[in-house]
């Protein structure tokens, strides 16, 4: 019975890990579709490479920071197969599986940043930044919240009467990723020709809406693994998380479609906005609260993206700061609103804990991300040369474009 439970837990987490890994393909295609043709190859390679670098960084350093356990013992021990394997590793390699599951979250942070800095960032410095973030900066925040290390959650409980709740990472993953991306984007500067001398924006058209849509679908579908499997044990699974995710996704899409006037860029980011926002509170809200949370996020994304692009003149290519940074922030706070029993929620959350925790997350990420990219900027440089940016990251970095046969026959 216990054996079946554990092995079902491993199976459960595996499916979660697989689904979130598939989301990374979604990140890749969302970016491929949004950037210009001359930067598509680089978008693809960047996402996949950063995922693999994150794997190594989180295995050797990050996970140990977050949860105080390492995998340097022999295989029979770390997989729990040996008779006297410490309990912390679980049976059936449960803890290894958990590492994999949580890695897919950690690796989302560079994937988020990638979308903001697209079309002009250097390849290897970005890889280095990814390594630093996933090895150290992300796990520090993860340790304090999900890892319950260093008494931070105790402090929340003592001060606000409830821990800071972030069930599936509106703050830990998305808000952190989004605000790190903001710092990186500001340090990098806008793409060449993005703004006229008078400050007005020049539209840089996306290359491929179907690829963008493919990315959006892969992210949306995989997200159910992101959220539901955050229970981490099958005994803690609940259909509530699944339906709340669904409702927030629907709310996000519908609001973005209406506010964004059926623009395909807004429509396909709408469900993502809703899903970013529901992560934190998906286990505590009522589905109608989730619908509202998602709808607010969908509308917020459209408004904030326009503001960011046209007023603030921040050249965040995919709009990852509005999407992950702001909708994530909203999600952290929304858990404190719609989680309340009065609004049909499960209770056990504190509005103030949520507000404070969320703001700390955003602030920490902005500073930590700023530091990493600042150091890299003044040392190795984070930006392609003008010439490289002009010919495109594909030819400049990878020596080949996205459609080589076409390029040979009809170079553009």
């Amino acid at each position: 019975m216990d054996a079946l439970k554990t092995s079902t837990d491993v199976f459960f987490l595996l499916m979660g890990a697989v689904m979130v890994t598939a989301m990374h393909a979604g990140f890749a295609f969302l970016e491929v579709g949004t950037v210009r043709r001359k930067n598509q190859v680089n978008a693809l390679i960047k996402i996949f490479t950063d995922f693999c670098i994150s794997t190594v960084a989180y295995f050797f350093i990050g996970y140990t920071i977050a949860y105080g356990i390492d995998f340097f013992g022999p295989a029979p021990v770390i997989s729990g197969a040996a008779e006297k394997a410490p309990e912390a590793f679980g049976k059936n390699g449960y803890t290894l599986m958990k590492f994999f599951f949580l890695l897919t979250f950690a690796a989302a942070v560079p994937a988020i940043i990638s979308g903001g800095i697209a079309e002009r960032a250097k390849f290897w410095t970005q890889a280095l930044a990814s390594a630093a973030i996933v090895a150290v900066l992300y796990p520090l925040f993860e340790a304090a919240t999900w890892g319950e290390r260093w008494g931070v959650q105790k402090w929340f409980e003592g001060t606000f009467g409830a821990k800071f709740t972030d069930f599936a990472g509106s703050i830990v993953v998305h808000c952190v990723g989004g605000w790190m991306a903001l710092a990186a984007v500001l340090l990098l500067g806008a793409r060449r020709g993005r703004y006229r001398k008078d400050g007005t924006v020049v539209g840089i058209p996306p290359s491929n809406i179907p690829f963008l849509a493919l990315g959006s679908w892969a992210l949306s579908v995989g997200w159910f693994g992101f959220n539901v499997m955050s229970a981490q044990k099958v005994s803690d699974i609940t259909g509530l998380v699944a339906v709340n995710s669904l409702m927030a996704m629907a709310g996000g899409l519908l609001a973005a479609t209406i506010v964004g006037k059926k623009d395909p860029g807004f429509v396909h980011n709408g469900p993502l906005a809703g899903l970013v926002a529901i992560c934190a509170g998906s286990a505590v809200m009522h589905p109608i609260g989730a619908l509202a949370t998602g709808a607010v996020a969908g509308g917020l994304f459209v408004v904030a993206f326009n503001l960011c692009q046209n007023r603030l003149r921040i050249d965040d290519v995919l709009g990852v700061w509005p999407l992950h940074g702001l909708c994530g922030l909203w999600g952290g706070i929304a858990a404190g609103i719609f989680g309340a029993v009065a609004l049909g929620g499960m209770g056990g959350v504190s509005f103030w804990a949520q507000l404070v925790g969320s703001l700390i997350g955003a602030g920490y990420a902005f500073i930590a991300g700023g530091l990493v990219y600042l150091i890299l900027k003044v040392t190795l440089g984070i930006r392609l040369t003008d010439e490289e940016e002009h010919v495109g990251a594909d030819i400049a970095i990878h020596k080949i474009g996205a459609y080589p046969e076409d390029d040979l026959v009809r170079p553009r």
Partner: protein
Amino acid sequence: MKLVSAIIKPFKLDEVREALLGLGVTGMTVTEVKGFGRQKGHTEIYRGAEYAISFLPKIKIEVAVKSEMADRAVEAIAKAAKTGSIGDGKVFVFDIDQALRIRTGETNDDAI
């Protein structure tokens, strides 16, 4: 010999081709081009940024004909390509100095 070169609306291609075939023309060469003129383009919008599409898709048909046939070719094209609304396009006629059919080596009038 003359080269009759016409810029037309893309969806008129089949009709113009039929009209030319009707005159006994046996070959022609077609190029996709973009036209700018009195007919105005449109604006596309993506995530709050506007893109002006000022060039419109057009088709260029080039047909080499014996000099005496040029006028009839111009006329046939003009008739077939006409919709009466702005953007119908133009026909230009140029002198051809020499012509050669690669396959046979025939030259000038025999080549076309």
